């Protein structure tokens, strides 16, 4: 039973140890805990699926993309190793680490993922993906709804957003209060005038634990503010309790975000769902390949950089989960609000598209395989905007994760209908 907020704060003002600060929450190192953790990684801006998992044998791919398309002989990573997967598909040359995971059977590709009547606005399409609701109404998030039904009563670190500026709608919930963290490492609540620390903390807590009207800005400021002071110290201790030999590159924002997931998943047994966002350039309207010096070099440029960061980060995270004995307990999945136009534009880029592919990673994934079909690249099969028609409803992907992975997940309750499950789990 969860303590009410008031009791919570009463208890927490008594002492400073983690155990007392967070009743029911202790720092430990769970071994083979059998937990079901989900890290949902957002590739914001609309990732170019066709240049991520490349149908390199399809002549239509090459005629649609004469400048930015990868020819068969160009499908080699920096070490010269081929990134071809089979007789139809290859990974982008930047994805060498993900190709390795695919070959080890730890990574699956879901293809042709989209929804009916695609919307080409970032905002609207994101809303649809976040709510799993094609009505375009600002409803609760699909993971928020799951959290409401399955994570109520757990600590506030059960559902966490890692990213920049504000909680994403995907975690918008009515009963639980997911935490939003931009990054680890902010100093805990500090009092420079050290002699006054106890007095200041007591007064601070008394002031911030007042009751405010439910749903008001004051209530939110007070709730998050109280949590910030409390969890500030807690996160500090979490960082200290976490040890790993895995190195997450400092300059890679995806890696840094996934490191935060690793820290929290390792240290807090309640930690269950994570939404991960980071700055990126997936919205590749122009110059998705090349640099000023080498404008036509497909192995360089914004898309290659973003995919390389993603690939290295997921590999580091996977290795870390193995080291932490959590590899059986963690599922990582990517998503993006849409793919991009099959036909390249005149700016060495691609405009907004529709169906795309996504990755699912974890020990329990039936990896090394493709699920869903690559949509046709026949011009006659495109929609009126010149985009591909989806083959896999994104809600089938969600349903599979809800019903076959998340503890207490119920796809019909969350999605409002049954969708065919996919075989990746």
């Amino acid at each position, binding site marked *: 039973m969860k303590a009410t907020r008031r009791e919570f704060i009463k208890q927490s003002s008594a002492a400073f140890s983690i155990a007392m600060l967070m009743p029911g929450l202790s720092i430990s190192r769970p071994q083979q805990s059998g937990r079901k953790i989900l890290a949902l990684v957002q590739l*914001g*801006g609309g990732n170019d699926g066709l240049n991520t998992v490349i149908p390199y044998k399809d002549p239509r791919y090459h005629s649609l993309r004469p400048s930015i398309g990868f020819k068969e002989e160009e499908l080699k990573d920096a070490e010269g190793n081929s990134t071809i997967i089979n007789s139809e598909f290859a990974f982008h040359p930047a994805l060498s680490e993900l190709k390795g995971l695919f070959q080890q059977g730890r990574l699956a590709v879901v293809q042709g993922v989209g929804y009916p009547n695609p919307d*080409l*606005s*970032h*905002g*609207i399409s994101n809303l649809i993906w976040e709510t799993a609701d094609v009505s375009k109404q600002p409803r609760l998030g699909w993971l928020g709804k799951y959290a409401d039904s399955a994570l109520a009563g757990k600590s506030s670190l059960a559902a966490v*957003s890692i990213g*920049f*500026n*504000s*909680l994403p709608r995907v975690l918008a919930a009515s009963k639980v209060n997911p935490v*939003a*963290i*931009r*990054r680890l490492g*902010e*100093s*805990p*609540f*500090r*009092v*420079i*005038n050290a*002699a*006054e620390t*106890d*007095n*200041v903390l007591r*007064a*601070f807590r008394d*002031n*911030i634990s*007042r009751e*405010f009207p439910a749903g008001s*800005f*004051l209530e*939110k*400021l007070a709730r*998050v*503010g109280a*949590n*910030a*002071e409390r*969890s*500030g110290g807690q996160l500090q201790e979490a960082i200290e309790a976490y040890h790993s030999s895995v190195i997450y590159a400092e300059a890679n924002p995806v890696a840094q975000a996934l490191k935060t997931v690793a820290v929290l998943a390792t240290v807090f047994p309640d930690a269950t769902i994570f939404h991960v966002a980071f*700055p990126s350039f997936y*919205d590749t*309207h*122009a*110059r998705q390949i090349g640099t000023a010096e080498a404008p036509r070099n497909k192995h360089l440029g914004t898309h290659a950089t973003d995919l390389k960061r993603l690939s290295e980060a997921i590999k580091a995270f996977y290795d870390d989960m193995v080291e932490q004995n959590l590899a059986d307990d963690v599922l990582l999945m990517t998503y993006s609000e849409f793919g991009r136009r099959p036909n390249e*534009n*005149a*700016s*060495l*880029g691609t*405009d*907004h598209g529709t169906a795309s592919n996504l990755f699912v990673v974890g020990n329990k994934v039936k990896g090394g395989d493709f699920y869903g079909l690559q949509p046709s690249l026949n011009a006659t099969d495109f929609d*009126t*905007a010149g985009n591909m028609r989806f083959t896999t409803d994104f809600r089938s992907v969600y349903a599979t994760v809800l019903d076959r992975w998340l503890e207490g997940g119920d796809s019909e309750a969350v999605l409002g209908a049954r969708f065919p499950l996919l075989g990746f789990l």
Partner: protein
Amino acid sequence: MADITRQEAAHLLRRTGFGNRIEDIKSLSARSRNKAVDQIIDYGRVNNQEMEDRLTANFEFLRASSPDSINDQNFNDAEIRAWWIFRMLLTHRPFEEKMTLFWHNFFATSLDKVPAIHIYTQNLDLRSHALGRFDDLLLKISQGAAMLIWLDGINSTRTNPNENFGRELQELFSTGINDAVTGEANYTEEDVKEVSRAFTGWRLRKSADPSPFAYEWYLDENEADHGQKTIYGQTANFSGQDVITVLADRRTTARFLVKRLFEFFVYRLDTESDEDRATIDKFADVYFANDHSIRELVRAIFKSEEFFSPRARFALIKNPVEFLIGSMRMLEASVGFGSTGARPAILETSLRTMGMDLFSPPDVFGWKLNDGFVTTDAMLVRFNIADRLMYFLGGGRFVKSSAKKTVKKMLDSFGLLEIDSAVEKRLQDYLALNSAGVPVGWNSSDISAIGKIKNLGRLIMCLPEHHLN
């Protein structure tokens, strides 16, 4: 008309500027609401030379006269951020900066893609056009280097138009996807394609002006599509300029703009409510009655009953700029300019860690306002900055003989902050404690008094009420 009350003046100053010092509140009182609003909005009459002189003396790039007089050392991302932060701290025209901030969030270009030189000139354009005709602002920004790069216009060709600008011009800069009142779709995918054609061939070059910042728009006739285009059911050989004129004259654009302004400056609107829809239309009428003048639109908004209604009072959450700059202005906290490459880090760093890195909004939508900024770590940063700001402040002027007067003085200094008496009492109790937590009474002449005062200010800055605007 009745004079503005102190509380109304405080509200007006909070919304139109950064913080509200007691002197500023006093200077507005004994005027009518209308006169008070005019005084703030018509800031062109306010002499700002002192600020300009101080900035010019402290920022080398402001003295640049030829292209080779700026370099990576004296002109870079950190330098222009510092420049704007000091403007906001020192200006005598807070509303000018506030409107510039509104437009920055509206057009939401970022240093992540656009070089500092163009972000800086765009900021100057946003400021000089902030209250002009909306058509002029939209055209100026659309033809500016920053936007041409940001949404890939410079690469858009007749045979293969780039849709990035054509789409966002409608979705974000004029009409929005759906009408703010009727909810009807404002454009189709076909409109996106046709509008995009009208902006093909828009290019950028260094102008003859010797200033290192001078670039100009031009039309590459070979890449411009002069053909017939059908936009919103009308067919003509629209140019990009024509499209902007058409957009600025659509009623749905006025509604969108009113909604954006209202939600930034007054309160959040519920477009399901008849009352709020009527409010949007009322101000959309003002836009059309005044030849698309932004100045007259915001004047009407700030003079309105809605703005001075109880619903508006403390109805928003301070964004990090309002919190930081506002707190510093109210406390009259002075921060040295430092020098190029060694500016005071607390300002830029804390805005970033509170989630509002100037010139780097998270995406094309700008920042999520209000509780978008209320995240666990961002609140912690707010609380800890409060500690640092107070620590470096001379606190003597807040010391009063009684704990009650001292708390009152401090609350008033934070812009007539309204809190309930139980909290006031608790703050007085805090002053009375010795460091062992024993109540010994407030002694304003004790050696510990200044330290207590600083913590008192910090505790007030941590109150949820202080984060409302």
